[in-house]
């Protein structure tokens, strides 16, 4: 297996994940006939946009610190992130929009969102390991917790739909 990720690329992937997720939730909300679920999806879209800004700030800081923000002496975290990317055949990017045909039911949209949120959690758990500075780790941890909350909300809605 070839290790192709640099620190800059990993943050770029995280940014793309959040950009795609925000777009997915916004598009899904537009198509959703249920006002309650529409509001939830719009809130999640806004949260993902906030995460995008966090990763953009972290990436800028990475440049300022000349790469010192990444610590992975044995390459284990990079191997993990590579494995996650390989397993999805997504070339390092989660793009839930690719799964939408426009004919999905609300239940199907929530299930796609749920899978995407789990993918985000498993990716960020690996990313957190790579971040060298504590403040950065804390930021990634906060994002992981928010994605866990999204999973909670999605699962509750799914259950309410029967």
């Amino acid at each position, binding site marked *: *297996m070839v290790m192709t990720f640099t620190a800059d690329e990993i943050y770029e992937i995280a940014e793309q994940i959040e950009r795609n997720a925000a777009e997915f939730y916004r598009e899904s909300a537009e198509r959703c006939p249920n006002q309650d679920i529409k509001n939830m999806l719009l809130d999640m879209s806004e949260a993902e946009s906030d995460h995008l800004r966090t990763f953009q700030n972290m990436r800028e800081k990475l440049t300022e610190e000349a790469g010192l923000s990444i610590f992975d002496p044995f390459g*284990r*975290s990079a*191997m*993990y992130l*590579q*494995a*996650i990317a*390989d*397993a999805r055949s997504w070339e390092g990017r989660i793009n839930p929009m690719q799964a939408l045909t426009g004919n999905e039911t609300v239940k199907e949209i929530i299930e796609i969102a749920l899978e995407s949120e*789990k*993918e985000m*959690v*498993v990716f960020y*758990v*690996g990313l957190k*390991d790579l971040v060298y500075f504590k403040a950065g780790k804390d930021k990634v941890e906060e994002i*992981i*917790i928010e994605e*866990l*909350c999204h*999973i*909670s909300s999605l*699962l*509750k809605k*799914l*259950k309410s739909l029967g």
Partner: protein
Amino acid sequence: MSMPFNADEVFEMAEQIERNGGKFYRAAAKKFPVVGKVLLELASMEDEHLKTFADMRAELSDTEVEELVFDPDGQAQMYLRVMADGHVFDTKADPVEKLADKDTPEEVLKMAIGLEKDSIAFYAGLKEAVPGKAGKDKVENIIKEEMGHIVILNQKLQDLV
């Protein structure tokens, strides 16, 4: 299944995830001998995780057993409850039955990666709910080992392609 309202039930759930994981890997190793060695190694690692969670559960004080896990906002508990309600984890289902429609080693390795991801997503919530640094560190170590399992499974998958 019952909802994990307290620490004892949450750890019981984690133990069951690991028990099912070990059982799944052993059955898969038997069905697909070509990847049997690595799957049996993973089964042994899941056994170790089971012991860790069982030890953590045994170390809970009488008060802790009955109390909610440390979770002032209730978010971690809510997360663990919904994760455990059968949609993501059905711990009562026989993991061996999941193998019935898997016909190739590639399929079983991909399925195993999916199960490891679900475990990581559950333990990420569990870590938030466990009180004390020592407990969080133990869960964090298990998360890191599950991440390692994904790397091992992915390497084996690449070898087969």
